[in-house]
């Protein structure tokens, strides 16, 4: 993974000093809240329902054990013993004191971390496939490009006061595990006709009040042109994105209003002027960054030569291997998903002790690497198959061995009204109760992604859940809409609202009714929910809900 050099280290130190000064000026009153707010947002500091919230950047979801241990330490020392992993691969602490935040940022800088641009109307954390560098189905590791974009976008003087937030995702596989088409810019790394690497560039995806799937604006951008092309896109957006209405200010609205061709033409015009300028990516710089992401020194010993996998037959372990493993490009290795969705638990939360334990596992069994997924789980990307039993046992000991990756209990939920000042309704308790209700049948139900948002801002990505749930406020009470048939993968689709909403009890029943109807009508266990929905349409599900 990327390692800071002197420049990178000095940069974050300066930023910490700058924010320390800004906090001091706020506390002294030299800055009022209106002036301070955009500054603190640019350092990831929100004011939530109960306290401040600090959102820490985890670039493209990659963490070292040392970094994970630091997060655990911060949770213990400055917060209330836990953290929350988000749908943008970041980590949130819910109880930091403003007066402590400069010190927290200083501690993060010690381990090459920061909270720069995790909020505010600027370019946010660049996310990537959480299986990058380990999966066999990628063209190349997308993360070096994510790192290049991260650097270029950091405190970019022209793009720090955009009309609205700006989110970029990078994938390198035909399987979209980063919801790339639901981003302001989605980049798909691929081989170009000439044999070199390049990108399909998608623009204008996003969720929220006006969900839209990104449009392809360029299919064949050579890698050397990546930054200049992005700069042209951002410039067009900065100049022409709407600033009169925050619900119409994302680039997706601009692309939709201009039309793809007209938008692409405007980008092209500025890009042609700058493409051969200072932002052209030199080949040796790409290789230099790629070198940080070189595969680890895999253990090449064939599994059979290692200790025998003698174990008392353990159906739970078998289920976990069957469910939470993804094929690794290296023989005898596996990619392990650590579900942060214990049955009835809080999606995406981890205690300081759990973080420390996972750091240990990453060190011992995963070549010093952990990933955060946008579905609020963690990943150990490089685990020898021979080590799976020990890893499983260790996860079991900390309560994180649920074999439910991608199952109905692997629910994504935003913090919701329990934490968030923007929310209309609670999302976490709904996730908990759905999980409890359906856990016994989760294997039978199979792949089913439920995503829950507590308000229209859609941080829970409800638009792209196979089943999505949106919390609203109705006559002062919490109320929930049900959406069906969304997908955040390469078959991106927006869910459609089923009909009238439900109360907090009703929504759990509603989900169960939908599941029951699916089980009745599927062609067999090999037809997952989404496929059955596409085949059947929504009328039969509506009938199950409302008849």
């Amino acid at each position: 993974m990327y390692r800071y050099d002197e420049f990178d280290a000095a940069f974050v130190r300066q930023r910490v000093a700058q924010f320390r000064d800004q906090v001091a000026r706020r506390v002294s009153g030299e800055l009022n809240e209106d002036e301070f707010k955009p500054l603190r947002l640019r350092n990831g500091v929100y004011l939530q329902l109960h306290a401040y919230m600090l959102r820490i950047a985890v670039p493209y979801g990659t963490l070292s054990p040392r970094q994970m241990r630091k997060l655990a330490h911060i949770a213990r020392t400055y917060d209330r013993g836990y953290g929350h992993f988000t749908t943008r691969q970041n980590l949130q602490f819910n109880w930091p004191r403003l007066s402590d935040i400069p010190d927290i940022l200083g501690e993060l800088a010690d381990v090459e971390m920061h909270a720069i641009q995790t909020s505010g109307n600027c370019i946010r954390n660049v996310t990537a496939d959480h299986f990058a560098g380990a999966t066999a189905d990628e063209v190349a590791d997308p993360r070096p490009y994510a790192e290049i974009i991260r650097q270029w976008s950091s405190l970019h003087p022209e793009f720090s006061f955009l009309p609205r937030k700006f989110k970029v995702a990078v994938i390198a596989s035909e399987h979209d595990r980063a919801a790339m088409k639901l981003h302001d810019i989605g980049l798909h790394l691929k081989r170009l006709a000439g044999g070199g690497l390049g990108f399909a560039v998608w623009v204008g995806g996003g969720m929220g009040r006006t969900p839209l799937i990104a449009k392809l604006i360029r299919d064949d951008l050579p890698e050397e042109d990546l930054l200049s092309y992005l700069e042209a896109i951002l410039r067009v957006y900065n100049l022409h994105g709407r600033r009169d209405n925050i619900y119409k200010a994302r680039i997706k609205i601009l692309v939709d209003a201009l039309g793809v061709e007209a938008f692409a033409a405007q980008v092209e015009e500025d890009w042609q002027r700058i493409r051969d300028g200072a932002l052209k990516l030199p080949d040796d710089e790409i290789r230099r960054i790629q070198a940080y992401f070189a595969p680890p020194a895999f253990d090449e010993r064939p599994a059979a030569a290692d200790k025998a996998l003698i174990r008392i037959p353990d159906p739970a372990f078998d289920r976990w291997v069957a469910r939470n493993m993804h094929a690794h490009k290296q023989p005898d290795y596996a990619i392990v998903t650590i579900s942060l969705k214990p049955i009835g638990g809080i999606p995406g939360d981890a205690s300081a002790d759990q973080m420390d334990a996972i750091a240990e596992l990453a060190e011992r069994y995963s070549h010093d690497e952990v990933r955060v997924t946008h579905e609020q789980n963690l990943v150990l990307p490089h685990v020898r198959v021979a080590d799976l039993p020990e890893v499983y046992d260790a996860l079991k000991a900390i309560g994180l061995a649920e074999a439910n990756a991608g199952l109905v209990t692997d629910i994504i939920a935003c913090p919701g009204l329990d934490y968030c000042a923007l929310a209309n309704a609670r999302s976490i308790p709904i996730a908990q109760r759905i999980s409890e209700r359906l856990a016994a049948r989760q294997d039978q139900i199979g792949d089913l992604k439920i995503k829950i948002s507590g308000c229209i801002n859609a941080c829970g990505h409800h638009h792209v859940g196979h089943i999505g749930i949106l919390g609203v406020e109705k006559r002062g009470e919490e109320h929930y809409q049900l959406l069906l048939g969304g997908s955040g993968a390469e078959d991106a689709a927006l869910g459609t609202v089923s009909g009238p909403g439900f109360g907090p009890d009703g929504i759990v029943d509603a989900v169960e009714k939908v599941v029951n109807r699916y089980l009745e009508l599927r062609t067999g266990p090999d037809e997952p929910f989404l496929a059955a929905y596409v085949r059947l349409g929504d009328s039969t599900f509506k009938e199950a809900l409302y008849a």
Partner: protein
Amino acid sequence: MSKRGPDVAVLTANRLSDGIVVYLAADGRWVERIEAAAVARSPDQVRDLQEQGARDSAANLVVEPYLAEVAEVAGRPLPARMRERLRVDGPSILDDVPGYVMPEVAGVRPLASSPRVYLNSGGEGSDPVSIEAA
């Protein structure tokens, strides 16, 4: 709630230094427990609360003060909206949060029966924690 604002309300805000939810008490201090909050029962009292809130916001004690409608139930203010009830009680799911602990704060310890309420070290049932103007 009438269009002009709540009839019976408390003034609530977040403390600037640590973001913790506080309520304006009758003596002008900001307290963490809603039971000690000043309840405004007339438009004049409501306006007084708002003015005090604006002053204390300008004095950098608190951030974003606003009125929260309450009903008085058995002598205690009970917030009308779910949002405000959550601000009183804390997240509804705290019992399920992995590893959740209240931080140790010098001179303050949590009440055994209700982990989300601080008291100062004067003993159980004593004065609510408050902040003073600098």
